């Protein structure tokens, strides 16, 4: 009787869960019923209509769940039909193609379900305020691992770290230089040795100037994880802020993030998004930067908040604070894989530690500028995550919660997309070109099963990620990476220990437009798809019985053609002259002119008088106009301007009035209100142009000493609210159809531009040979 009562209690308590499971089972069962065309057509149309009706409703609650439930049912029905009725053996080769396509689709379906699980209820945490008693604030070590990044790049990050607003006694900054290890300094290659030595000396000097501890080690063991672990012996703060060498933190990064650790002692990680101030090659070469959400937005704005709901947001290697105690518990950062970040996170999650994700950009970083660098970065991610799947499989990792297992599985399995993408590229040709029967469906089935399925994929993706990812963008990115990542993933599958950590090159410059040397595989893919499309036209005329199927496959080939053209567009590398990317802003400022009574415009004499050269590498004219307190201002003029973009090098300002020419005794400043105070940044005008009713001026920041440099870095990289605004501005959604057509247009125009350049260069060579 007692047992019965207990059972009744359990049933009562779990009645909702039991009912849900029961209905889920019923729905899965019903989704497998192969009803007639009409019935299937009715359900497809009805559910799609409902999905279209729910789409505009902005809700994270019931409507979102309903949306994914309805779409899941259509996807389930599709796969039920595919599995039961379309896997027909015709001949050996067709069957191989058929199974490959089906597996690629199954992968897509699995990722669909994992994705909707992860993203069903994203949460948006707000920064937890710090207590007023500063003595209770934990101590923080900022660690900046670097390897071979340019010193100028590291300098910005160090300066930005120095600018971080936190009580000085509780803040220590460390540069972890893996490029200055004994191993590097004693490299058998003389050139490398000298380069490492020079770089090391520069960094040590810089660290000294900025009051940053320079740490290095003997050997470059375990790459980044080894570097971090080596530093752990020298640091002892309660918390660790990890920053990549190209991730300049905002001044308020600690004040925004540390509160979470005080609020909950089980929190081991507070991760923030990686905010990038330069375009990736796709955005740059297709001229899409700031016209649509960045590629990383989908992960940082969409997926991480979803993971956070399930306590599965994970460490992304930088822009995150970790609790030292937790790191020590697992013996430091994990380095078995080349993605030490997610590996460390999964281990800590399995120990019961919690992670938080705060969707607030607090660092400004750089993305790879060229396609080559982009591929190096993505191959590392792909290899690392596949290694993680092998070594730290979330399905078997002890103590993880089910939701966490699913989330990690989703993140890791994502990187198998190259296989599916390759199959999707090859498949139309298998039918149109070789006549293999790899998809057994008539036109009716195509319209009532396949079309709703594809529509649901697009609608759901758009619904879940409408402000962070436009239509076709995922497909283009995947196509770009697929042909290279597939080899990387295969290499890991063959030998999981093989991959080595490759640092993504940053601050690269391109003096002129060029065709990426990685383009060749895409020419083959494009040629194959084009040929398949041509064969499709031929088949259409020869096999009237197969026309419906040929038509559908032909359009599939056309879609692939579009993706490949867009990829080729991205492979047409546009020149990149600025080392420091311009950041679009809209800051009200003043052009400030000060004329001095005691002015010596001779720079050399001026410097002699000062008796020092702050930065011997800076151009003479820049230092010649240093702003000193000893001068006496005779005349001061202000003209309101708007700063439209800025970078460490300078920026552009817009003015309604024409700015007067600079006289010898005149110093020019840009005056910006920063809270209650007015900051002045010395500049020189480099160029001007009149546009419509206003004037546009190019300005260059002038700085004389480290304080000026810190001030300018603070101005450029220190204000997180600026990143938030850009984040908000780029989160636009023109709608599924418009974004689709936009991408089609962009893809075609840039793809053909690439082809045109290649053909032009080919004909030039041809002419040179024969003339």
């Amino acid at each position, binding site marked *: 009787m007692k047992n019965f009562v207990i059972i009744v209690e359990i049933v009562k308590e779990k009645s909702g869960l039991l009912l849900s499971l029961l209905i889920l089972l019923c729905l899965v069962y019903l989704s497998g019923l192969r009803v007639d065309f009409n019935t299937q057509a009715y359900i497809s149309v009805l559910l799609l209509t409902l999905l279209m009706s729910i789409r505009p409703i902005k809700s994270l609650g019931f409507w979102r769940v309903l949306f994914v439930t309805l779409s899941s049912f259509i996807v389930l029905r599709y796969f039920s039909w595919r599995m039961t009725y379309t896997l027909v053996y015709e001949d050996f080769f067709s069957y191989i193609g058929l199974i490959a396509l089906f597996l690629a689709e199954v992968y897509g379906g699995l990722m669909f379900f994992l994705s909707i699980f992860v993203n069903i209820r994203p*949460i948006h945490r707000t920064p937890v305020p710090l207590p007023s008693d500063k003595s209770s604030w934990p101590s923080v070590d900022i660690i900046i691992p670097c390897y071979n990044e340019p010193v100028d790049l590291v300098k910005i990050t160090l300066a930005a770290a120095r600018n971080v607003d936190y009580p000085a006694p509780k803040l220590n900054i460390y540069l972890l230089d893996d490029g200055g290890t004994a191993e590097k300094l004693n490299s058998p290659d003389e050139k490398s040795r000298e380069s490492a030595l020079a770089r090391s000396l520069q960094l040590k000097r810089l660290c000294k100037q900025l009051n940053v501890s320079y740490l290095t080690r003997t050997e470059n063991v375990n790459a980044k994880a080894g570097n971090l672990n080596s530093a752990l012996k020298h640091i002892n703060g309660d918390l660790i802020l990890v920053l990549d060498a190209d991730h300049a933190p905002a001044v308020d990064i600690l004040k925004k993030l540390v509160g979470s650790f005080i609020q909950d002692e089980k929190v081991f990680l507070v991760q923030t998004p990686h905010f990038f101030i330069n375009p990736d090659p796709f955005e740059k070469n297709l001229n899409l930067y700031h016209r649509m959400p960045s590629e990383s937005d989908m992960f940082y704005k969409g997926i991480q908040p979803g993971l956070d709901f399930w306590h599965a947001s994970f460490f992304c290697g930088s822009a995150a604070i970790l609790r030292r105690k937790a790191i020590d518990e697992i013996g430091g950062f994990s380095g078995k894989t080349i993605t030490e970040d997610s590996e460390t996170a999964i281990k800590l999650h399995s120990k019961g530690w919690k992670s938080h994700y705060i969707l607030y950009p607090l660092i400004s970083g750089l993305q790879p500028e060229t396609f080559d660098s982009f591929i190096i970065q993505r191959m590392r991610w792909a290899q690392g995550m596949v290694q993680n799947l092998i070594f730290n499989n979330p399905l078997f990792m002890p103590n993880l919660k089910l939701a966490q297992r699913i989330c990690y599985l989703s993140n890791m399995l994502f990187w198998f997309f190259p296989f599916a993408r390759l199959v999707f590229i090859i498949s139309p040709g298998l039918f149109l070109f070789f006549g293999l029967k790899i998809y057994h469906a008539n036109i009716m089935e195509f319209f009532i099963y396949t079309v709703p399925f594809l529509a649901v994929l697009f609608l759901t993706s758009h619904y879940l990620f409408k402000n962070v990812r436009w239509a076709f963008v995922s497909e283009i990115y995947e196509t770009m990476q697929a042909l290279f990542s597939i080899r990387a993933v295969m290499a890991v599958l063959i030998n999981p220990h093989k991959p080595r950590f490759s640092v993504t090159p940053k601050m690269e410059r391109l003096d002129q437009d060029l065709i990426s040397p990685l383009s060749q595989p895409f020419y083959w893919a494009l040629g194959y798809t084009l040929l398949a499309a041509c064969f499709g036209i031929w088949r259409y005329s020869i096999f009237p019985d197969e026309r419906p199927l040929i038509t559908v496959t032909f359009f599939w080939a056309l879609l692939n053609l579009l993706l490949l053209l867009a990829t080729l567009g991205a492979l047409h590398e546009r020149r990149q002259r600025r080392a420091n990317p311009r950041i679009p802003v809209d800051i009200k400022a003043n052009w400030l002119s000060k004329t001095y009574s005691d002015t010596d415009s001779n720079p050399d004499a001026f410097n002699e008088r000062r008796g020092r050269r702050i930065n011997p590498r800076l151009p003479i004219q820049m230092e010649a106009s240093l702003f000193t307190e000893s001068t006496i201002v005779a005349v001061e003029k202000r003209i309101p301007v708007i700063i439209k973009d800025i970078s460490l090098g300078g920026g552009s300002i817009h003015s309604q009035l024409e700015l007067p020419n600079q006289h010898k005794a005149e110093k020019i400043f840009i005056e910006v209100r920063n809270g209650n105070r007015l900051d002045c940044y010395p500049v020189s005008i480099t160029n001007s142009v009149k546009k419509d009713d206003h004037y546009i001026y190019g300005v260059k920041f002038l700085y004389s000493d480290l304080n000026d440099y810190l001030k300018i870095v603070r101005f450029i990289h220190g204000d997180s609210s600026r990143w938030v605004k850009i984040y908000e501005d780029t989160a636009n959604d023109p709608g599924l159809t418009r974004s689709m057509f936009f991408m089609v247009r962009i893809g075609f125009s840039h793809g053909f531009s690439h082809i045109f350049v290649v053909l032009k260069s080919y004909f030039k060579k041809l002419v040179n040979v024969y003339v």
Partner: protein
Amino acid sequence: MSKSLRNCLFLLSLFLFVDSALSMPVPVASEQKLSKSWPLSHFMSEDKPLMLKSVDGSYNLSFPVSERVNPLSAELNLVITNSNLLHENRSQLVVYINNYIVGQIKLNPVNKETQAKFVIDKEYLIPGYNQLSLKVAQHYTETQCEDWSSPELWTNINTEKSTLALNYEELPVNAKLSALNSLINNRLDNYSLSILRANETISDDYLYWGAMVAQSVKLRLKHVPMKLDEQLVKPYYMADGSGKSSGRFNLNPEQLKHDAVLLGTKEQLGQLIPAEINKAITGAYLGIFQQDQDKNHFILVISGNTNQEVKKAVQSFALFTAIFPDAQETIVDQVMFPDNAEIYSHQSILPDHTYQFAQLGFGNKSLNAVNSEAKFDIRIPADLYGTEDQLVKIHLNLAYGAGMRKDSVINISLNGLFNHAIQLKEQEGAHYRNYHITIPLRSFNAGLNTLAFSSVLKPSESGECMYVQRDNLLVSIYEDSTISFPDVGREAALPDLQLLEQTSFPLIKNGSAGETVFRVLDNSSDSITAAWYLIAKLAAYFETPAFDLNITQGKYSDDKNVVLIGKLSPDDQSVLEGSPVKLGVLSKFPYQFKEQQQQQKEPFWEWLDRVVSDQNPSPLPTAITPKNVPIVQTAGLGDEFLMMSYPTPGDKGYVTLALLSDKNNSLSSGMETLFSPQLWSQLKGNIFLWDNQKKFYWQQEGETFLTGHGNTRLDMIMYFSKHPWHWLALILPMLLLIAWLIHKSLAKYKKQTHPRVDE
């Protein structure tokens, strides 16, 4: 001659006549010369005129000559109409019997109608099937070259007016069990058989024995109509009071007009059979004997010491399809049925199975310009339920000759309906392996389907002044071609008399009647015979006897399909519970009144499919459902017969089939009429009325239900396919509910794990 002499001669003649009549009641048949005549259409599959076209048109048909007769001669009377443009001196019709020329005539263009008589000597005739070939040579010029396929080259033979007559004399019965197959098939007319019952009491065992005999005979007769005559026989002795019979069997000669089967245990037959036979019955006994007074007919004794032995004997009779044993009588010791339940009747196909054509009775076939059709039958299970898109796949292995015109084709038709074509476009000829053809499963009917390949072969060269080579017009279809059926479910909507007609479903499934009980409503021979007719007819579809049938006059289990057959007793109206038609003092019949019309709107998807693929037929016409008005009245069936099928009360998924008459001793004749091809093929709906003049009426009344193998999944598929809105009504609330439950669970989870995070 004097008057007294005339009177004496008359008396003498009268005496001699009476004397001979008494001593020889039936004349010896072998001395009788008999004749029988049929229209030519009797031997053709279709009732249509026979048209012989082109230069050398021909037509073959087969006519049977029974092994029980000695053919003396045959007469072929042809009524011919030929083209009036034929050249008389070069046009003729030649008649062949079994490839021997037996006659020829010139085709006269002047004659409006020519009547030609051909006498065929007995030497040309063989027992069994004889091939009659009619071949023409037709020309329209004397010396000039001509087009061999010119449309004016035709001769028409009126197959109704043209006759074939057979002159024959009957042969004495070869009283051997090995001759049973040839004996039970006179091939000339209906086959009549008397089933003789020795016991006044009609037991269920006897009903079973008779049913087995009826099935056995029907299976041997195939399409030849069977006429049964059930009689109670009593020991019969000569009227002279001597206590002696007129022959070996103590049977009244008046009851032995046809071949006869004497059924009963040894004890029941004891006084009817000779002592030596009685002595020979030591177990399950089968013995065949010439009838005492008519040596041209046999009497088959099926007996045993017990009812079980008789049962074993009748089952053996059903199985004796080979020419073994070569003996007059035998005792059956064991009948060893296979114990494997997964056995199927001949030519039945199963879902998800592939068959070679050879396994379905299709041997290697070569088609040419003249013999242009090859076909075979497939039996589709009655309850095969497939979705619209499921396809039957044919992988043809075929070869065709070189030098044919590009528009030469093989037309593939299913049940007479064109379905597919293969263009023979290779000038050099070709040999195809696995030529792939698909036919939608739903194009197949439940039951017997005929898949036909007909070639339309044209020579590449033709013209008036050219020798046209036609020997190259050849197509071979190989027996190792395959046909594959998709994996589908088993489901059918019942009641459906058409389905019963086509497949015997659901009363006999795959040759088994185990799920059906046949109840004879009264004990008249007429009703018993009617039941046996029905059982034999249903079993004939599967070409195998239903050994497991249940037939009774009493109570029966309600977890089976029920067949009620006979004349309904006024006291037992309860047996018709749930029936759409009631009979009795007051009858009830649903008359058609109005109809519900519902326009079948073409769904967008179908429209799209039609536009894109250009293959689907036009949109569905308006769906018309009759709305009947039942009228209760005093009058009833009269001379008509009623067949109705309805769900058996109790909702167990069974049907009841009632075959009823209102008069005594009429139902068996009604059944004979019903089984005529003209009437049997008209079965539809669930109520069918007919009379002996072959007038009929059918209609549907009441709801149908689904039956299958208890497969809920199939039931649901079929139901939701027919009721799409119900499907939506089920799915949508479930999706809403699960979404709401998930939403609530997520909210609860969030509250528990992220209490400080705002929405």
